[in-house]
């Protein structure tokens, strides 16, 4: 007997068993059939035969199969379910994994193919029945787990069991509803006569009584199917089953990225702004008024194209035509859904700006008549009702971008259901107040499945990236901007709104501006996140480093609103080609030449501690920037207060009054100055480190080498052959002396403000201006001007280096570097002409530090120049340092720009925190 026949012969299921068993039990008890004890109709005699015909179609049936679905086969024992499914698999219409059968699972858990519990002895029957019941229970449990898993993965699953009892079907209807997949049923309506014939031929016949009972059950149940919540119900006679055509529907939400997409945020009837935006994106109308992009890009709307704003009808007509012409896509949205139902004639409360659309319709009707308006309404209605909850764009078959209106959960992506539609229209609306697990209502914090989710609905002041989600609703209708997100470019194009159309005094944008200084949302950061910077693009930071950075900002730094900029780390040059140098200016110059930079600025590097100086003209001037009165703030490169509070107050006050007296604030019409500076002497901040490391090691080396040298000299005097050793140790002692002198050169005593000097080298910002694009010469000259205003400030020596073929500037630079470093100076910082520069679209290192030969003793040890040591040190790896330098620089200038634009604290802080997180990611600190 073939496997197939076998399966057919032994086909059974838990439920017919239990029903049968109960009936049998009843017979044993009473000697005649009756209702089973659980109140459920197990069968009804004499079900009118013709009733089933009412739900049976005689046409050649076509079955349309969605991508993910549960398909139940229903039919009495011997109705041919398994055989038919096997044929579908053999013909390649269904995949083997798409079919699950209760028999197979029973076999899997127990090895039992069939169990006939009918015995003359009631005791035995009872035991066997219970045993069978237990096996069936386990088998179904596992099978249902498999079905659920497949539903979660949006797969199609055919279930081969009798399904002749309502509860066995409705549990799948419920499962489908819960997991957002449609549930279909195909009932095989096979005449009783055939069923009985087939049973007689089986190896283990089920017996006449059971077949008859199955049949009665089947007949009594099929008329209910339409009411049980199936997406499709098919009741098929054997000849129909034979001719059944199955069509797999394409995924309704999938589209190719193709030449690119431009997703447009909430338009809300801002038609003029939309046309400007389309122009900027490069869309041009054809003769019929349909907009096309020369590259074949696709327009996508994130919904809410109408209401609140001035020209809803024009905007909707635009989209209606684009969609009809296949030149646009649109997702469903809250206003869209409400308007759709209004257009269906439902009772809907047209408020929250929807009343403006109604007024426009009335106006339209007055101008064009009733017929025209009905026509229009019909078109709009159809467009809106057809809008899917979300769209998925694929690249090389991989789902890269999801567009939805208000939000989506990862497990919804790719599925459709009413609940998903609601979620996508409104976002998370219910806070999990009484659940045991704290629920974040910000759905985007939970997004982990990798796709970029582009959404609108909830206006933000800027396009906001959080956790691979991108909000592009910048509240055009509230006087903000209309934003387009371009993919795969991953860039934004924005158009300023011409006015605040909604004129809502409590508009989301106004509320956001009021909450400008609110504590940043931890959830956006804690799992790792990325920042979109103008100069470098997207910069991602990993969770572990973010946590370390949050530890820092929670314990050590100045208040978050004062922390406006974290200075970037600086890369060293590639190692020198010269045999006895580790670093040399030639490599820095070569780097910039290779990046097509024509002019460099070389600045003397002070050996002190990096500091950020934020100074306000008066305490009140700080209000618009940090939300409370403040003199200013001086902090270290890791965000810690640089000075003790009293000294900081004195220094800030001195700076303020010096600049005031010099007329600086008036001259530049600014209430605020932000400086990137070095504060000397070195021991001001580093005394502990110098004492416990540098001085300690110097002392150890001097003692060790002096003692050994003295003893060797005694040995030499006594005639031991140690001349060579004496020479060696004389030199080693000399190294130790150089080392001990090297670090002392950067230290001197200070008393209060006395002895402290601040050397600014970037004038980062004034009120309303960031100077991050300026020339370094400008920065240096401006620093000179500042130094002239205050004794606390000092200028920095610099030289301009022209990189023409015939210029001797490079040699002059090298000579300068050599002479100052031989005197023990730390070295030079070599910068390209402008503070921010790109070459071939990529950011150029904003600075390269070239440290002196002598200075490097305190970094690489007193004997680093020994050829053996130097050879190995030259294998140092600088790639990570260089990458970090670029990313931290980009984050730094991004945060300054956001600070100057007075963006929400959270927006500025995401840059600062990312820079701190990058700093937490260990890079060789000697670089």
């Amino acid at each position, binding site marked *: 007997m073939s496997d197939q026949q076998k399966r057919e012969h032994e086909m059974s299921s838990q439920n017919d068993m239990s029903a049968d068993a109960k009936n049998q039990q009843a017979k044993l008890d009473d000697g005649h059939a009756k209702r089973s004890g659980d109140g459920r109709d197990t069968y009804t005699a004499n079900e009118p035969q013709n009733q089933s015909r009412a739900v049976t179609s005689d046409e050649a049936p076509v079955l349309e199969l969605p991508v993910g679905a549960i398909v139940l086969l229903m039919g009495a024992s011997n109705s041919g379910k398994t055989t038919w499914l096997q044929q579908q698999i053999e013909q390649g219409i269904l995949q083997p994994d798409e079919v699950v059968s209760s028999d197979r699972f029973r076999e899997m858990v127990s090895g039992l193919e069939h169990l006939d519990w009918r015995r003359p002895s009631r005791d035995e029957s009872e035991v066997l029945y219970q045993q069978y019941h237990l096996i069936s229970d386990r088998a179904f449990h596992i099978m249902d787990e498999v079905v659920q898993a497949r539903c979660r993965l949006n797969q199609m699953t055919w279930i081969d069991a009798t399904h002749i009892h309502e509860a066995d079907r409705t549990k799948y209807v419920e499962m489908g509803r819960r997991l957002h997949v449609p549930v279909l049923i195909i009932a095989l309506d096979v005449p009783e006569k055939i069923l009985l014939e087939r049973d007689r031929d089986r190896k283990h016949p089920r017996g006449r009584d059971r077949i008859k009972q199955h049949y009665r059950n089947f007949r009594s149940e099929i008329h209910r199917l339409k009411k049980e919540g199936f997406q499709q119900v098919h009741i098929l006679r054997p000849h129909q089953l034979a001719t059944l055509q199955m069509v797999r529907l394409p995924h309704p939400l999938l589209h190719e990225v193709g030449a690119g997409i431009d997703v447009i945020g909430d338009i809300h009837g801002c038609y003029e702004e939309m046309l400007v935006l389309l122009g900027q994106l490069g869309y041009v109308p054809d003769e019929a008024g349909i907009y096309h992009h020369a590259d074949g890009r696709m327009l996508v709307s994130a919904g809410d194209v109408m209401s609140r704003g001035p020209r809803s009808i024009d905007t909707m007509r635009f989209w209606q035509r684009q969609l009809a012409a296949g030149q646009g896509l649109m997702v469903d949205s809250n206003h869209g859904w409400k308007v759709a139902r209004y257009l269906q004639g439902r009772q809907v409360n047209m408020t929250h700006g929807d009343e403006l659309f109604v007024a426009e319709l009335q106006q339209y009707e007055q101008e064009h008549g009733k017929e025209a308006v009905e026509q229009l309404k019909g078109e709009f209605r159809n467009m809106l009702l057809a809008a899917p909850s979300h769209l998925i764009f694929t690249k090389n078959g991989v789902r890269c971008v999801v567009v939805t209106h208000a939000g989506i959960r990862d497990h919804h992506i790719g599925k459709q259901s009413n609940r998903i539609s609601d979620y996508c229209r409104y976002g998370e609306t219910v806070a999990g107040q009484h659940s045991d697990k*704290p629920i974040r209502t910000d759905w985007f914090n939970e997004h982990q499945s990798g796709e970029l989710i582009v959404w609108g609905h909830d206006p933000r002041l800027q396009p906001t990236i959080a956790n691979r989600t991108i909000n592009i609703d910048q509240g055009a209708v509230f006087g903000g901007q209309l934003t387009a997100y371009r993919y795969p470019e991953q860039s934004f194009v924005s158009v300023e709104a011409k006015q605040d159309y909604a004129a809502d005094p409590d508009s989301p944008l106004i509320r956001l501006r009021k909450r400008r200084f609110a504590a940043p949302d931890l959830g956006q950061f804690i799992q790792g996140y990325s920042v979109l910077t103008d100069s470098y693009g997207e910069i991602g930071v990993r969770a572990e480093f973010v946590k370390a950075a949050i530890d820092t900002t929670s314990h050590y730094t100045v208040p978050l609103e004062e922390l406006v900029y974290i200075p970037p780390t600086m890369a060293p040059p590639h190692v020198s080609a010269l045999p006895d140098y580790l670093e040399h200016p030639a490599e820095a110059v070569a780097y910039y030449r290779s990046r097509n930079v024509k002019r460099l600025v070389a600045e003397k590097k002070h050996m002190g501690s990096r500091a950020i100086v934020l100074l306000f003209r008066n305490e009140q001037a700080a209000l618009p920037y940090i939300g409370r009165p403040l003199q200013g703030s001086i902090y270290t490169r890791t965000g810690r207060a640089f000075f003790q509070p009293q000294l900081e107050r004195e220094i800030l006050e001195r700076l303020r009054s010096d600049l005031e007296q010099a007329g600086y604030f008036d001259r530049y019409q600014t209430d605020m100055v932000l400086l990137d500076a070095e504060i000397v002497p070195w021991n001001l901040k580093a005394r502990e480190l110098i004492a416990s490391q540098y001085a300690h090691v110097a002392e150890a080396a001097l003692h060790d080498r002096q*003692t050994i040298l003295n003893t060797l000299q005694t040995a030499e005097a006594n005639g031991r052959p140690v001349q060579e050793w004496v020479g060696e140790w004389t030199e080693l002692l000399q190294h130790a002396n150089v080392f001990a002198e090297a670090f002392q050169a950067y230290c001197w005593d200070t008393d209060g403000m006395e002895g402290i000097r601040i050397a600014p080298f970037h004038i980062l910002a004034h009120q309303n201006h960031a100077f991050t694009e300026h020339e370094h010469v400008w920065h240096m000259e401006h620093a000179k001007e500042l130094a002239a205003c205050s004794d606390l400030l000092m200028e920095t020596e610099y030289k301009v280096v022209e990189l023409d073929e015939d210029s001797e500037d490079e040699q002059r630079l090298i000579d300068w570097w050599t002479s100052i470093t031989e005197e023990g100076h730390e070295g030079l910082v070599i910068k390209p002409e402008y503070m921010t520069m790109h070459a071939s679209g990529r950011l150029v290192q904003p600075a390269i530090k070239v440290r002196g030969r002598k200075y490097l003793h305190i970094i690489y040890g007193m004997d680093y120049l020994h050829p053996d040591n130097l050879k190995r040190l030259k294998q140092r790896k600088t790639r990570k340092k260089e990458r970090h330098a670029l990313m931290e620089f980009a984050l730094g200038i991004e945060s300054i720009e956001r600070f100057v634009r007075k963006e929400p604290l959270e927006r500025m802080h995401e840059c600062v925190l990312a820079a701190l997180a990058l700093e937490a990611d260990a890079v060789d600190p000697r670089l």
Partner: protein
Amino acid sequence: MYLKIRSVGQDAGMISHLLAKNPHNLYDRDEKGARVRIVYPVFAEQELEVLLFVTPDPVELVKGTPDSYDITQYINDREFAVSSLFCSYLRSALGTALNGKPKADYAEWVQHPFPMEVSFGPVASNLPDDVMTLLFTSLGYDVRLERPETSYSFKLKERSTIRAVHLTGRTTLQQLLRQLFVLMPVLDDYKHYYIGEEEVEKLHRYGEGWLLEHPQHAFIARRSLRFAPLLRLYRQGLPEEVAQDFDTRGRFVRATDEDADSQLDNGIAEQAMNETEASPSNLLDGSINEIAKSENTVESEEVAEAASEPAQKTAKAPRLNELRYEAIVACVGELESHRRVVDFGAGEGKLSERLASIAGVEQVWAVEPSAYAGVRALDRFAAMEEKGANVVPQLATGSLFYRDERWSRHDVMILCEVIEHINEARLPMVMRTLFNDYQPQTLIMTTPNREYNAIYELDEQRMRHADHRFEWTRAEFQTFCQQWSEYGGYQVTFEGIGERSDEYGQPTQMAIFQRIGGDRG
């Protein structure tokens, strides 16, 4: 790193045979990447001086060490300081002498005590002079410690942090070397990250004939082996009566858990205060250093005891912590709703643990920004889980300077000794987040009462903890609390915790904020 041995007198020259090194030749070998050299600057029948010195490879030395991400990695005293490394480099050169196995002709000199003058250095040690001296005087040496002169162009340090040791005494060469091989690593500061079991065997071997009688035996063993399992192993190899004596004199397990914790707290606060700009050591490394630092602190206290100096008492009464926990637990227990509790700034989770055991508490969130403290809290909670606790707190990374919807609308929120660690300027934003965004039914806050510092005899300017940004009087605290309570419609009551003084009140003050109107809409 050098060792100089000098002997003057009858037969001093025999020492060269015990060393098995020809006094007329130079010894120059490569040993594990280090250059080991021996020379006799002075050699006569009645006068001998031998210099042993080692130059390790500075680059090799630091490869793969845990400090590799420290900017001062190459600024390393390991290259110079006398340490266990020095001993291991010398081990093979001194094999004959250490084993007492010279050529048969000289075997009789192995047991011969010579007058010895020994110098070695530089020593980098955290032990005070008197303890260093004591370790050698106990063996019958005269000891002189030498500190090099230092002078810097600016105010840096009082005196050098390195020393050289000079010993004089009469002993056999073998005994001398064995003692040095045990005691040099004991003096040295190096933080051992790994000490193997072979160190136990070494201690037994080199300690033979002198260590058991050494009055600081337990201290030496602890400094050498450091870890409890190794110490237990070492104890097994001791004669029973010594082992028992060892138990009473030496603590195998350092102090108590509580002591170690508070030491650690202080250590961390100290780190926060000392954080210098040029030292961007990353967090984890910092933590490792802190562990080492705290062990040192514990040890220096023991050392102080050993040198019979009175241990310094800290200002805080040790039980105050406990009293605070009790007061908070009692307060939470009496609240009408206390199912869900958030312990903000939970640190190592001690309070969270107690909160979880209150009847009716179903959930405790221990929120803490510090990953390091968090690890210790996790250990604590895992132990609770093992013991089968009904409610085990859950740890979450969180910070008062950020908004997190997870902390909205819990029954009880606790800030136990948290606010004084926050700059005053940052408090208004924190309080707005707490009272407006999180809206707990009850918020409990404790903080030191500054007035009470008078009882601790702290002078006006000093605070109880290095990281405290402020300490408030009762009036100050109550004024602030009244102000905050108005942010979100709360009423506030106050209590004190700890021993009461009529004049100054109690050491800790506690504010209990209750949301007006009870159930929220």
